[in-house]
């Protein structure tokens, strides 16, 4: 056992200083400040990678002065597993499996981004029904993803009840997604050219049943968490990201819209069935954690609205275009982006005419949200750090890739 452990751990892998708490990371200051002859010292504490509120394996190295955060370093890479590199060795219809595991709570959107990028280089006309099914899958997945965020955001504040309700709803959604694609989380449903399968019989009724109660439940959930005065006091006014800062740090999605910037890829660069759908883009004003909460709750409502429209207007026809068994797009470069649950997911694809992508770059919105934390957190209390990290809704799978 020990031999193997050494073999695995010892091949020059562990960076010096990375795991050694004795060495303060560069960029963090260790400045003693004196009050009435008493000297105090800033304390460096380490949060993560195993921490219940970092939503995965995020590591924050925090320098505190008493309870107040002075400086933060975000350390990532604990889930780096080479999605971009491995995509160069997968066929085009199999890259979706990697994209699922990137942003693992909303896999459909990752698949969709890749499919859109590949289709730009293929001579293929995607049928109308495929567009609608893609939108349907995305919106269902967005609901499931936002429910995870809602549940865990409450957990960060110390609430427990809403987590169970959110999980109950999510299970109903996962049942629908499983009926649609065959898996609960890793779908590989959206592929270049269309989707894998049509809606099974009876799914429309299943979705209607779900929607019939969802709106009422959503009000209830909003009351449960957002109507709670303690919760409001804890999230209002913390973690403010104003418009200028959001743009400078490249934030997208709900984090950007909470700052009042009206940009939604579904609206600004329409794809799939979104041009034909009627929906609103909820906006915030100040960009604090409370606004991000409100925007995401509003998005859930809009998603439910869209799902209702999508199942009512689902067109007839083929669910996929005719694509060869082995897809070989034309050589070239393509960029496609979609609005995933966390922001803008982009795929930069280089094809060289073979059956494998030459290079695929995956723009994860969480990476940009995470680096903004270094700027937002200083000045807050350490208890608020958890709330702010929770409110940005980062997903480590697409952060490290």
């Amino acid at each position, binding site marked *: 056992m020990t031999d193997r452990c050494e073999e695995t751990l010892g091949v020059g*892998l562990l960076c010096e200083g990375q795991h050694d708490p004795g060495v303060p990371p560069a960029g963090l200051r260790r400045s003693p400040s004196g009050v009435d002859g008493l000297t105090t010292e800033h304390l460096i504490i380490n949060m993560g990678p195993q921490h219940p509120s970092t939503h995965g394996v995020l590591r924050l190295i925090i320098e505190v002065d008493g309870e107040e955060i002075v400086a933060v370093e975000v350390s990532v*890479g604990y889930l780096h597993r080479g999605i*971009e590199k491995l995509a160069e060795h997968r066929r085009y219809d199999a890259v979706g499996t990697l994209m699922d595991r990137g942003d693992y709570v909303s896999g459909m959107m990752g698949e969709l981004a890749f499919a859109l990028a590949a289709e730009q280089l293929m001579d293929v006309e995607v049928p109308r029904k495929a567009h609608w099914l893609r939108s349907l899958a995305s919106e269902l997945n967005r609901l499931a993803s936002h429910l995870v965020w809602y549940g865990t955001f409450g957990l960060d504040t110390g609430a427990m009840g809403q987590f169970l309700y959110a999980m109950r709803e999510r299970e109903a959604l996962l049942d629908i997604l499983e009926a649609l694609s065959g898996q609960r989380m890793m779908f590989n449903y959206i592929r270049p050219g269309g989707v894998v399968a049509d809606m099974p019989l009876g799914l429309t009724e299943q979705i209607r049943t779900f929607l019939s109660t969802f709106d009422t439940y959503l009000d209830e959930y909003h009351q449960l968490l957002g109507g709670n005065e303690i919760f409001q006091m804890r999230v209002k006014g913390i973690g403010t990201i104003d418009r200028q800062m959001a743009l400078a740090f490249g934030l997208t999605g709900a984090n950007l819209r909470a700052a009042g910037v009206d940009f939604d890829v579904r609206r600004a660069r329409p794809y799939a069935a979104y041009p034909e759908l009627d929906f609103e883009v909820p906006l915030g004003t100040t960009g604090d954690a409370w606004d991000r909460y409100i925007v995401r709750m509003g998005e859930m409502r809009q998603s439910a609205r869209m799902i209702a429209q999508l199942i009512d207007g689902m067109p007839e026809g083929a669910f996929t275009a005719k694509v060869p068994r082995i897809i070989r797009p034309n050589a*070239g470069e393509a960029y496609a982006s979609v609005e995933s649950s966390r922001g803008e997911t982009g795929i*930069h694809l280089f094809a060289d005419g073979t059956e494998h992508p030459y290079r695929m*770059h995956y*723009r994860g919105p969480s990476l940009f949200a995470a680096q903004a934390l270094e700027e937002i957190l200083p000045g807050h209390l350490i208890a608020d750090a958890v709330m702010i990290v929770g409110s940005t809704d980062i997903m480590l799978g697409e952060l490290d890739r």
Partner: protein
Amino acid sequence: MRPAIADIERLLAAFEETTVAEETPGVVARVSLADVGDVLAELKSAGYESLVDFDGMDTGELIELTYRMRSYSFDVELFVKTTVAYGGTIESVWYEYPSALMPERETAELFGIHLAGHPNPKRLLTTDGVAPLLRKDVPIRTVEEVRAR
């Protein structure tokens, strides 16, 4: 939306070796490595507020870097491309665009290039001693290696 090519050409007229053309992903401005910092500063003053994406690609001889810029006020997008040799050095643009902080570190580490002017040029994703994994000459594990686990 795509900006007019003439606008970008006028904006970047001061930089020689700059070509602006329409390609599949959008309007692409190819600039030389030395000019990148100035070009991006110029674009920022012209209203491109956000650097949305930054990535690299190994062409086999060089590393091609892509900056994806977006202006929310004018709702336009622009790709700026440049190339750097293996083991070369790129100038960090974090001062204009703080969003480049981590993507630059990531690209530098995974393609084996160096960063100049970066406040924290440490490795981002992997530990010390790991080869630049996204380069084409770094292979992935073979089937035999995986089997011999």
